[in-house]
């Protein structure tokens, strides 16, 4: 039992990177657009299912498929923000009222996307594992797809972080997140920034879906639990913080692997809740969140 712990922790870190990627898009969408996008998991599902469809019908490399599904999800997110959420925001009496109604709107969209997908693909679990070769590392057996998934997640996370902190557009996004009114007065086209941020969140979710599909079974019903994980990771790491998403993701990854491996797979979600509860009592802003 004890000798499995290093292996479980390694597995946890590797899958935690993907959780970080899952949470990053959600965190960005809330941080900039003030929409707690609970359809996020459905975007991940769409990314995964489209990747599966492309790899089966065109025998495409899944990571190449991400080059198609990613932009598609970007477009969907962009469209949702420019049509639905923007007009909702224009009519909301206060920012708090907008957050509430945007949450309900996302709740409706969740069911629309989920059942459209179920009509198209049915409810069966599908497996499109990719790169299943074993790799031995420090005496531990790892799978190549775990390592590639982690590397892809970290690379994307770093790219987004650098984009947000170093580029002009990234600075405009952060300014809009901080204070949309002032950012608008400084010449930032805030509507465009909101749409881009929401689209970027969608893109990250779509690519996360591709990454997940290479190593786990997928189905049209996977979205809900994915959203639960992403929400908990975001709350853990701190809303709106990119590095926080990865810290939260890796903690949740390690914990879930230890619970699954040493204790009881059914208790994964209850343990997440226990962690979340302790965190909300002790440090509500999240581990790396601003007070």
């Amino acid at each position: 039992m004890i000798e499995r712990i290093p292996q479980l922790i390694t597995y946890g870190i590797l899958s935690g990177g993907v959780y970080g990627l899952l949470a990053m898009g959600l965190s960005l969408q809330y941080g900039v657009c003030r929409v707690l996008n609970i359809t996020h998991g459905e975007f991940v599902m769409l990314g995964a299912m489209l990747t599966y469809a492309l790899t089966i019908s065109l025998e495409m490399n899944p990571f190449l498929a991400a080059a198609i599904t990613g932009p598609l999800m970007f477009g969907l997110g962009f469209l949702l923000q420019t049509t639905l959420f923007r007009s909702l925001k224009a009519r909301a009496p206060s920012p708090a009222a907008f957050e509430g109604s945007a949450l309900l709107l996302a709740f409706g969209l969740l069911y629309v996307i989920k059942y459209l997908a179920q009509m198209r693909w049915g409810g069966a679990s599908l497996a499109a594992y990719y790169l299943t070769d074993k790799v031995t590392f420090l005496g531990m057996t790892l799978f190549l797809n775990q390592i590639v998934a982690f590397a892809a997640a970290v690379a994307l996370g770093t790219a987004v972080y650098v984009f947000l902190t170093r580029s002009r557009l990234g600075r405009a996004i952060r300014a809009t997140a901080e204070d949309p009114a002032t950012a608008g007065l400084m010449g930032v086209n805030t509507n465009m920034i909101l749409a881009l941020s929401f689209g970027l969140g969608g893109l990250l979710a779509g690519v996360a879906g591709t990454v997940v599909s290479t190593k786990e079974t997928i189905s049209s019903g996977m979205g809900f639990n994915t959203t639960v994980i992403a929400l908990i990771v975001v709350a853990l790491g701190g809303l709106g913080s990119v590095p926080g998403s990865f810290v939260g993701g890796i903690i949740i990854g390690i914990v879930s692997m230890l619970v699954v491996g040493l204790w009881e797979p059914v208790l994964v979600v209850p343990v997440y809740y226990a962690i979340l509860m302790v965190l909300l009592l002790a440090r509500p802003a999240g581990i790396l969140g601003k007070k």
Partner: protein
Amino acid sequence: MDITGFMSGQRKLLIAGSIVLLLVFIATFPLYGGVYNTRVLTSMLMYVVLAVSWAMFSGPTGYMSLAPAAFFGIGIYTMALLQNELPFPVIIAVGGLLAFALALLVGLVTLRLKGIYFAIFTFGLVVFMSEMVYYVEARLGQIRGRDVIPLDAQMLLYTMLGVAVATLLAAYFIRRSRYGLALLSIGANEEAAAHMGVNTTMIKVILFAVSAIFMGAAGVVTAPALMWVDNRIAFSTFYSFLPILMAVFGGMGQLHGPVIGAAVLGYLDKTLRVQLQVYFMLAFGIILVLVILFLPNGIVGLVPMLQERLRRLTARLRKGGEAEPHANT
């Protein structure tokens, strides 16, 4: 003015009369409706309880609870566990109290923070409850699911009617009390409410927990109609989605909004869901999106909106379209 006083008196009489008629209709329904339709009516009343109790807290505050199903499921399981131990009315009370306790816990952890944490926490609460029950039942107890002895449909209808009336009375009096005003002030501007001396956290926690009582009670009364329950049936996200949809569809701003929403969509749910399944859920998702975008006050809000349009139209016609109507016309 005299006329408005007379009008409002007449209006009150009209409302009281229609409520009495409705109660008589429901009470006598089993005599001519048949067992199947009695069950449909019971299910509609169940949705009335869920939608009204959801709107009781989330409507005025804007704190969106995504977990009515967690409290409803507690009621279902309370009935499944205690059906042979205690009399039915006592089980209803126990189910309500257990739901109250869970809501109190959730509220104490999340409601002192920003609304976003409340939404995050409640989103997965149904999954949490379901997995916990599965663990205790299947892993520790080696059983999967439980039978619930069916009870007389007529008796269940009357019990659900009682729960629904209690829910509506509670919602009515909370709205009129200073707690209702406090909730509204929290929704309008929480910081200002706190500065005015409203103990916002306490009010939120208590009223959220009170609203959960009715969900738990509805679960207890619903359980016998299910005949067999397991963690997935009792804690289904479906029961979170529908009450929210119904309350929003009907209109959260007024007491009768969620009632109408629950009656209309609850009837459709009971009659169409089995045949249409996926299309049905898709349609419900689309309805929720459309209502939030175009009918922020629900279908109840449609009536004053149309009245206003009609009044403007007639005013314009009367003046021959030459002048814009004044604010007081």
